[in-house]
């Protein structure tokens, strides 16, 4: 999963990496010793990365969150869990491929993992509906959560969606009702619930699997009521103001934590999880284990009370 796609704002880094590669080639030919230059270039690359990634705009973070080489839900499951048994279907209509889930073990502990799943090529994207669940997806997720509750197994949800699917069938089968039901049911689940935004957290489509005791965001992800593009089109009546919209929405992990709307940030490798996925896997696994340590000892009623209180405090009003 090497990075084969760079953004415009990473140009300085890419140029330096090209230089480094050429210098290494020349060095290998052995006519002149270029090892000093290689060291200098490597230092320059590190500095350029630090400079670029420390001043990312909201929109640039949105772009990183959508990078095609970012780990998706099934990648995380493969690398942080063992014994994963995928479970399918909502028992009513069909199996929604935009949401996957099943029992597994993380660090030897039983968990239920559920997440939105995107695709990497055209065929996969269609199969996964671009990570946009239909009502069946939310109902499958709820079915699996209830199953986890029955067997007293903690729930991990991985959020990565551009939104719930808009369409004739989604409306016919009650997209609104499906999401609403999950919000209500998740708030009173008796087992620990840990929700992690691993990519895009767009709107009710994200929140539909996002009511947890711990809601965490990976460092380069976003979470808001609407995507910057749609926000631009509605408030500015043009698709061109997405950068402005991304700033205005304060959708980054740091903004969301600062506003008290999420509980923590999971660090990613510099520039994003796709630069070294194994670091991202290790960090998310550690965050899950830490959260499980914190939550599993609690009395279920106390945990539910705290969960509801947390969401009840969100909002700013003037009286």
């Amino acid at each position: 999963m090497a990075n084969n796609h760079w953004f415009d704002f990473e140009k300085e880094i890419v140029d330096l990496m090209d230089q480094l590669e050429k210098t290494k080639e020349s060095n290998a030919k052995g006519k002149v010793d270029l090892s000093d230059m290689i060291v200098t270039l490597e230092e320059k690359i590190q500095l350029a990365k630090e400079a670029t990634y420390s001043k990312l705009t909201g929109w640039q973070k949105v772009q990183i969150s959508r990078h095609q080489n970012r780990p998706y839900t099934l990648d995380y499951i493969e690398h942080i869990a063992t014994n994963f048994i995928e479970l399918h279907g909502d028992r009513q209509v069909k199996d929604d491929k935009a949401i996957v889930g099943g029992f597994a073990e993380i660090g030897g502990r039983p968990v239920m993992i559920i997440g939105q799943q995107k695709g990497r090529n055209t065929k996969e994207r269609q199969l996964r509906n671009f990570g946009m669940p239909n009502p069946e997806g939310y109902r499958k997720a709820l079915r699996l959560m209830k199953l986890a509750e029955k067997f007293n197994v903690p729930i991990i949800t991985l959020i990565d969606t551009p939104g719930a699917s808009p369409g004739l069938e989604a409306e016919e089968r009650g997209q609104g009702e499906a999401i609403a039901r999950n919000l209500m049911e998740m708030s009173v689940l008796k087992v620990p619930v840990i929700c992690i935004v691993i990519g895009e957290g767009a709107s009710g489509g994200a929140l539909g699997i996002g009511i947890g005791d711990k809601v965490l965001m990976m460092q380069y992800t976003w979470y808001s009521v609407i995507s910057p593009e749609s926000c631009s089109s509605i408030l500015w009546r043009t698709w061109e103001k997405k950068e402005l919209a991304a700033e205005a929405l304060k959708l980054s992990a740091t903004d969301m934590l600062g506003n008290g709307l999420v509980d923590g940030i999971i660090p990613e490798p510099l520039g994003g999880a796709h630069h070294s996925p194994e670091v991202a896997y290790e960090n998310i696994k550690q965050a899950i284990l830490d959260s499980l340590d914190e939550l599993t000892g609690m009395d279920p009623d106390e945990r539910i009370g705290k969960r509801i209180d947390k969401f009840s405090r969100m909002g700013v009003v003037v009286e």
Partner: protein
Amino acid sequence: MNFEFEDEDELNGGEGSKWYKRTWSGIFTKTEEKKATPDGLWEKCKRCKEVAPTKDWISNRYVCPSCSYHEKIGSAEYFDILFDGGEYTEINASMSSGDPLNFTDTAPYVDRIVVAQKKTGLKDALRTAHGNINGIPLMVACMDFNFIGGSMGSVVGEKIARAIDYCLETKTPFLMISKSGGARMMEAAFSLMQMAKTSAKLALLNKAGVPYISLMTNPTTGGVTASYAMLGDFNIAEPEALIGFAGPRVIRETIGKDLPKGFQSSEFLVEHGFLDFIVTRKELKNKLSQLLSIIWKK
């Protein structure tokens, strides 16, 4: 992609909205004024275009005397229609919106709030009040579409949460009247979390065994549909209301063709199993008290 907060003009029925604002503002905002409505004023129905005396519209609960078209009305009118003797106690009446994100699009959010407050005489897009309907105590939360498209921000969520707290403390049934374009974008994730907050509170009400009736009126879309509006023990709607998650324009753009006639209407939702029944505005009060008298004997 996101579908919150459909275009306000579209929700108002396009051209009709101008007529609405010109003709009806002032008549629908304050109940006291209706007593002073002079004879000789006439109103034209937005749908059938029939003309009828204003006083007939008002005595008919703002429903067209010719074709039963349900005109949009606000919290003042619903409170007046529902509560015995028009008497009720409003709670958290002075609560208004903060600007947690210091949000500006083409105008600052704080300015939009001030303009909306002046235009409507309201503090925000929802009011909560308790009183009796045919002798049965009821808490009512009612949205006002005139206030920034009935959009749901922190005030809407917080007022609903506190109304539910009141219902939990006093074991009072709860009626939610929705009329909204969805979440308020200018409060971004704060708006989104109102969906979580209200749904969590409704879970508590559900556990306590206190009845919750959700009445959806034209239009009910976006994050409102995907939270409290769809969570009633009884989900009911006025006739021919637009009810959906994604707005019709977004769906049309996504599928690239026109939507079937009647798609996302109250009647469509009953057929697909998401509403218990449709109730006309005229029958509303008696139907609610009839239902509550069966399930909620003291």
